[in-house]
């Protein structure tokens, strides 16, 4: 068997990549992609834990599926927002959206 720690490491790496994408990318769509990466990394984590610790109980799987659904919904909403912003400002660069500053 592959040890659990490998899966966790993979999930952590993916998460960090996703985090870097969220924090460092200019394009808002790319930030959304980073968020998707983070969510998927969490999913990997969840499934790994389920498989290695409580394979009999199905709540691990359920949780993963719920996360998928939420991720999808959230991506849809996020994109809708970005489209709305683009229509307004002809740009999707996240740094330029600073209307809520002091």
């Amino acid at each position: 068997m592959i040890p659990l720690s490998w899966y966790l490491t993979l999930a952590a790496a993916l998460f960090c990549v996703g985090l870097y994408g969220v924090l460092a990318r200019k394009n808002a769509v790319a930030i959304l992609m980073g968020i998707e990466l983070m969510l998927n990394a969490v999913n990997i984590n969840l499934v790994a834990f389920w498989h290695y610790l409580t394979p009999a109980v199905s709540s691990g799987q359920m949780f993963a599926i719920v996360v998928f659904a939420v991720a999808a919904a959230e991506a849809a909403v996020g994109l809708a927002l970005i489209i709305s912003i683009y229509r307004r400002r002809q740009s999707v660069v996240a740094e330029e959206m600073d209307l809520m500053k002091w």
Partner: protein
Amino acid sequence: MQLDHDLLAQLTWLVPVPPLLAFFLIVLFTNRSKGLSHTVAVGMMALSWAVSWLVFFNVFRSENLGEDPIRGVVDWLPFGSAAVAGTGTLQMGVLVDPLTAVMLFFVSLTCLMIFVYSVGYSNWGKPRDPHDAPGNPPHGGIEPLYSRFFAFLSLFAFGMLTLVVADNVLLMFIGWEIMGLCSYLLIGFWYARKYEDPNQITPRQAGVKAFMTTRVGDVFMLLGIVYLYSQTGTLSFREILHSEEVLNHLAATPSYIAGLSVAGLAGLLLFAGTVGKSAQFPLHVWLPDAMEGPTPVSAMIHAATMVSAGVYAMVRLFPLLSAGWHHGEPLTPPMLALAVIGSFSALFAATIAVAQNDVKKVLAYSTISQLAYMIAALGIGAYVAAAFHLVTHAFFKALLFLGSGSVIHGVEHGMHHSTGEASPSAHAKDARGHDASPQQIDPQNMMNMGGLRKRMPVTFWTFLIGGFALSGFPLVTAGFWSKDAILGGAWEGGYVVVFVVLALSAFLTAFYTMRQISLTFLGEPRTKAAEHASESDPIFRTILFALVVLAFFAITAGWAGIPESFPGLGGLLPNWFHEFVGGTLLERPEAEAFNVVPLATSLVVALGGLLLGWLTYRNVPAGADDPLKAPLGPIHTLLKNKYYFDEMYAFAFVRPAIWLSETFVSAWVDRGVIDGTLHLVARTAIPIGNAFRNYFDAPVVNGSGDLVANIVKWFGRTFRVIQTGKVQQYLLVVMVIMLVLGAVLFVPGLGR
């Protein structure tokens, strides 16, 4: 009808009330309607008169009214507590003893007559002349302030009647002061009247002068009242004056002033009130100037009633003044003061009257002189004579004043008829403020009269009766009997100086009276106005009625007091007055034995004075000087100017008082010291306040508040920069904090 004493006491309470009611009714309700006002006033006075006469005629036959008078008392004011000595209840009440009864008789009648007279005198029935401004005497039209006049007269009548029926000194003093007020109001009735001559006193000034002068007397009187109260604990007449022990105690106790007993000091202080009120020397100066008031006022207040009140007070307080004295002993200090001031004033005023030309001024000085007679009589112990003269004098003096008013009105009518109403210069003014177009002259100056006997017969005969009564014309006039009584008392007591002075004054009285009558009524008219004078105008109806009634009493009143020992007539009628009024005192005075000397003196001076006056003045032509001017020379000027007393008082008292008030108090103390202190306080307080504001309030108090706000603002401004609006940055911060938190929570050893 015979009534019992309790009912009579109730009625006596009612005597002063109707005029007071009239005063309030007129002031509050009937002021607009002249007719209604005089109806109320005269009606109420008539009611008062009727009740007074009812009371009088019920008691005049009692022989012992003095021991058992009519009394009604109410508890007025409780003071102190039962445990403290000198406490009790102040009681007010009415008292009708013989003296009060005769006072009621003549006061109510004279007041009523004067009320009736005033209706005609104020030109009732004439239309209102638009040229007559209120506050000025009317020229033929009805008096503009008609209702006010009757209101004041009513208030005055209330004051006098209160004084008469009072049973204690305080209530008497209250009535006294009310009359003082009314005197001021009525003397200054024509308040807007001005004269061009600045030395001529205006009615307003005369009112103030009267009030001020009598005030001087009143202050001493009040001191006397307080002193009396402090020594006896009561002010009731019966308790002090009708009680042997109290009087003896007062006469025996020494007072603060060495040589004077309590009775003596109190008596002197109370006498000072009379000196002011009855215009005796040295407080006589106000009465001649009080003639600025309308003639009914002069008659009522300054002849028949108010000035008589001063003498009444002395008559009433005679037991106090004479405490410890009996006939034949030396006089007590108050009696001495009365005798001296009385005799002096009598002669003094009589000499001045000889040189006066204004018809009312002669009568004013005559009043001073006659009141002095009464006071001198009291001073030498002739109690009944003084009271008798008080009664008769009221009648004939009121008669004379009313007669002079009639004369003045008659001459004014003459002025109007001799110039014609439509003359354009009909309202120019002369020095005295009377119309000064040609033939407009001072209607009060006797030198402008003459021959009025034919033009105004009723006035002439009544005035003659009054004048003869004043002079003491034998047998048929009241004045003779009362004056004879006084002279008799002086002679019998052996007071030769008083006798001589009074006899001399009687001579001068007869002289100046006849002078007045001759100049006014006899001879030929000296001016056109006198030629056209008349008394046939309808306004004279009430005037002449009052004159006739008073003339009747001026003749007959004397017959109530014919001495028993008089040759021939004595004994035909009982000496009712002596018996009745004599009962007021504890010790009934004895009737004097007859002595021919006072009678002869009285006849000689009266008839001699009348004859001399007639001879000198019966034919004074128009424009001529006073026939007495040439022989007397500078003395005449002295007399005419009243011995310059007004000027002396102005210099000695009035100017310093004005200096004190205008300069010392007003400018120096009030504006300088008091205002100066206030300004100083203000001037120091303002810089202090400014300093507080600028150095404490603004920087410290405001500053600390502002500082707090500024700190908050600074924090806000400084830290808001973290809100950049960039989402990624926010997320970065979140990540950092999560790392820190994670470290603190999950690394063993870190954190607390």
